[in-house]
């Protein structure tokens, strides 16, 4: 299999960060790979500071990796990467953003402060 390239346009920064922006990553992938695979690849090989929430990785049971992909709410772990047009990734709409793709999804009673 030859590696294909997906372009991920990722929302970076924190809410109070004047430098908040989209950053684009070129991610090599094989058929079947997911957006979460691509983000984990970026963290291991390119930019470890990229923040994304996930737990079960591949089973779609924890539901922690819910983000907005091209404006639609979706699971990063089940959305396939594709070639061509960039895929735009944002934190969940309607929830406070904490950093990059991580939004505040903890139930209010499960916060420390």
């Amino acid at each position, binding site marked *: 299999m030859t590696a294909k390239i997906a372009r991920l346009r990722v929302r970076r920064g924190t809410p109070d960060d004047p430098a908040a922006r989209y950053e684009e990553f070129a991610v090599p992938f094989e058929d*079947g790979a997911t957006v979460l695979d691509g983000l984990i690849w970026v963290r291991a090989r390119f930019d470890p500071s990229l923040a994304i929430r996930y737990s079960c990785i591949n089973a779609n049971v924890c539901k922690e990796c819910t983000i907005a992909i091209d404006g639609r709410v979706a699971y990063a772990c089940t959305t396939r990467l594709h070639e061509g047009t960039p895929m735009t990734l944002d934190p969940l709409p309607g929830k406070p953003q904490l950093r990059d793709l991580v939004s505040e999804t903890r139930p209010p009673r499960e916060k420390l402060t």
Partner: protein
Amino acid sequence: MRDVETDVLVVGAGGAGMYAALAAARGGAGRVLLVDRSLVGRGGATIMAQMTVAASLAEESSDDPELHLADTLAAGRGLCAEALAAALCGDAPARIREMEEWRVGWARRADGRIAQIAAPGHSRPRCCYVDVLNTGPAVAATLRRQIGRVAAIRRVSNLTVTDLVTAGGEAIGAVAVDIATGAAVTIAAKATVIATGGLTRLYRRTSASANMGGDGYALALAAGAELVDMEFVQFFPIGHLAPRLVGMDPIMWDPFRYKLGGRLLNGAGREFLAGYGSDESGAYTTPRDLATYAIATEVAAGRGSPNGGVYLSFEHVPRAELETAFGPVIDRLARHGIDLNRAPVEVSPIAHYHMGGIAVDERMASRVPGLYAAGEAVGGANGANRLSGNAIPEALAFGERAGRSAAAYAAGRPAVDWPHRAGADAADRIVRLAEGRRGEIAAAALLDELRDLMQARVGPFRTAAGLECALARLAAMRAALPEIAIAPGRACNPTLADWFELRAGLTAAEAVARAALARTESRGAHQREDFPETHPSWARSQRVRMAADGDVEVGFLR
């Protein structure tokens, strides 16, 4: 004054941790603090369980805990801590029926009995489940509902415990990092339960969630507890390999084999298990350690499938049977281009469960007063090889015991007397790291490399040379810890979390590699190419402890 004070601190909120919190409250603890690095009740291993839960309910045939224990001991290849195995098998029926009272929804036969199937290694149908492939999510949701009803239980998500705090040899609490803010948090606790699960995330091929990085083992070692049976990592033999599936646990073929049999074939399309002493004849009977060994041997001999595994075929199973057993899943497979009637899938061993863990007695007490363990974090109950279906009852039974014991211990103890500067070094480290640090080395890259290293050198096949190579590389990675870059920004900083994950993972990995190097025989999940025989003189467990200088040492029970 600490940041938080509690009677019982439970670290890890999967099945074992949630149950431990319930049991601690039931046992009279007025303040129970249940924390998880992920989201409470969402991370961990329990929620990922596909199907089997072993308990001698005797719904399908005569059964009792003694028979369950006999099967567990046989699967453990002579190494089970019998008191722990007996606790698991003895408590399982009550825990499983209690889950039913809490409306978990175990699958039932047409006549109303709870359905129980015979899994490999069980002498009778003993494993119940929630359809379809929904055991883990149903158990996790049930426990989340229960803990939500108990006012004494305070839940905190995204809190990573980095260090336990001891005073005078007793556990008095912990230091943690609040992921959302990057702040250091000190927790005074009269008793602490470690329920952090296993370490299979340290391997490249794994069914584990992100949380199974071995942190609980590192915490316990550093606090003065001992670990046991650390060399025994269970590789689930038929983890999904190809074609790529997403959104489905790679363990999913286990339930398919329970219900439909299926045939395991090598690259040449031939059945091969009989050559390893296990003639399945279409049924699913081969224990996990033997099947893993057989598959790895076929692949090593050049008789594997194109992607480096073997074939699992359901081509001979009538369509109607497939649909009846797994209707919705068959549809999902079709969307992935998989038609089980037309072609086999490829499978290969995948790190699934850790038999080793914190050494405890049947009250789940470690040798450190005030420190308890529950669930997969505990070592010994399953010896050298775990029987399928024993993980969920272990989580619930040991969670119940640990929570009850911790509450009783806390009740007899005055408020924690927190010495000046206790935990201060650990808290200072968090504060310092959270300030950020320039550097050339990324913990995320080393964690990625660690998984390849463990897979290749400390995986299903081991040699002295490979293990020594792994230990040398682990030492080099440890030496790099002070130089690892931390990105700026305290809130949700993944490089800060990575640093602590790497530190803990290296300790856990070293415990496995050292124990594996010392055991000069092959037994259960520990297979040495240079020592292929099983020796009766090795029918004893090894202990791992941490020396005063931080070295990880292997020996026997003193």
